[in-house]
């Protein structure tokens, strides 16, 4: 993608949000929170791309869930969420399926999140692309 607008008031990857996810008492993955990089909220259907690299390694799209309002959506399901509204001051949670969870210590979280601004047409059918990406090192505490 060529030019994309960036409007950012807050870190996309939220501090101190990294945790393991448990099922049946065992670690089955991890999660962290992200914020929308813009000045207003959006329906999730405006998201054009969501991808994740952790410690330099691409996470398979099938293993990523986008969680909001007590609901979980796979990356492939986001385009259909035309009534799920992500507020500008509301963190969403990204959950990653990874059997065994993630090790304690520091991890490089690199989120690719591209969306379009649905009221800013750049042609009859295309809208201003917005760069909502974020990168941060998050630490999972030992316990």
């Amino acid at each position, binding site marked *: 993608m060529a030019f994309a607008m960036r409007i950012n008031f807050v870190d996309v990857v939220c501090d101190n949000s990294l945790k393991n996810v448990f099922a049946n008492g065992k670690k089955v993955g991890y999660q962290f929170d992200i914020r929308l990089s*813009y*000045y207003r909220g959006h329906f999730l*259907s405006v998201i054009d791309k969501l991808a994740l690299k952790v410690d330099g390694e691409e996470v398979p799209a099938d293993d990523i869930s986008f969680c909001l309002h007590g609901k979980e959506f796979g990356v492939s399901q986001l385009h259909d969420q035309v009534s799920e509204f992500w507020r*500008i*001051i509301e963190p969403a949670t990204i959950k990653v399926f990874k059997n065994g969870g993630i090790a304690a210590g520091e991890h490089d979280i690199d989120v690719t999140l591209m969306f379009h601004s*649905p009221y800013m047409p750049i042609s009859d*059918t295309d*809208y201003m692309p917005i760069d909502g990406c974020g990168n941060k090192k998050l630490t999972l505490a030992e316990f």
Partner: protein
Amino acid sequence: MSDIKLGITLYCFTNEYCGDSMTLEDCIRKAKEIGAEGYEIVATQMIPSYPYVSDEFLGEIKAMSAYYDIAPICYSANMDRGMRGDRNLTEDEMLQMAINDVKSANKMGCKVMREQFLLSPAALVKLAPYAEAYDVRVGIEIHNPETPNTPIMRDYLEKIQTSGSKYIGFVPDFGLFATRPNKPMWDEALRAGVPVSILEMARDMRLNDVSWDDAMKKLGEAGATGPAFATAQGMWGFVQFRENCKAELKGLQEIMPYCFHMHGKCHYLSEDLKEASIPYNEIMPVIAESDYKGYIVTEYEDHNSGNAVEMTRRHIAMMKKLLGR
């Protein structure tokens, strides 16, 4: 005889709200402190139950209105035609979205709603009976680079006049009257190391109506780099300017019977209360001498400055001074 009220849009505090340093209540309190008689709210920005107004949120708003003695007076809607990735919303879908917004505006007690131009003139006319029933006047925002004289706005004007409805009209944004380059963007370019000669060259080409393609070419030949092009993009985009705004003020006079809300856009106000690129001293007499009845809300837009509170305060002070209050 005009009856102008001064308000502010809470959008002025975008940086503070989105960056978590001001809550909605902080924004409302600050609006009151600064001297606003009412406030505008961008629904997609600050209404937690968007696209609806929940009873819980309404209760909070009413409590704050009573406590701070200031109420929402304009519901600012967005027309998200491209909200689906696979296709544009249809006219019917956009009309339904606007009807829902009218209901939300009414629920919050707003008598005015800002709508965006992706809602077609025909759909705006279809919205009129709903606007009337709910007693919410819906105005299409005229935002730079549009002016009251541009073809799309002339189309709205014709449809509004033919409809005979008093409930559909315009919300002019004063950015459309700009006669100088946007100061924050100019200053940012200077900070990024862009030579002033390049900026002046871009400014002069803009004033001479050089096309974007030709301007890009000439700027490139003169050695312009990324930050210079970014500034130029504004000059040919949403912060255009011209030698003077006489034609635009004439256009404003023509649409004035259909105006019931206005955006007092500002990007930078000096200590002696002058807007850097928008000639308020020319705009305000035209409005003051008309029969305009409604709010002019301060809309400060240089979110990254961190100066929103002070700039909003200066803008209100300038408006009072120009209105002789």
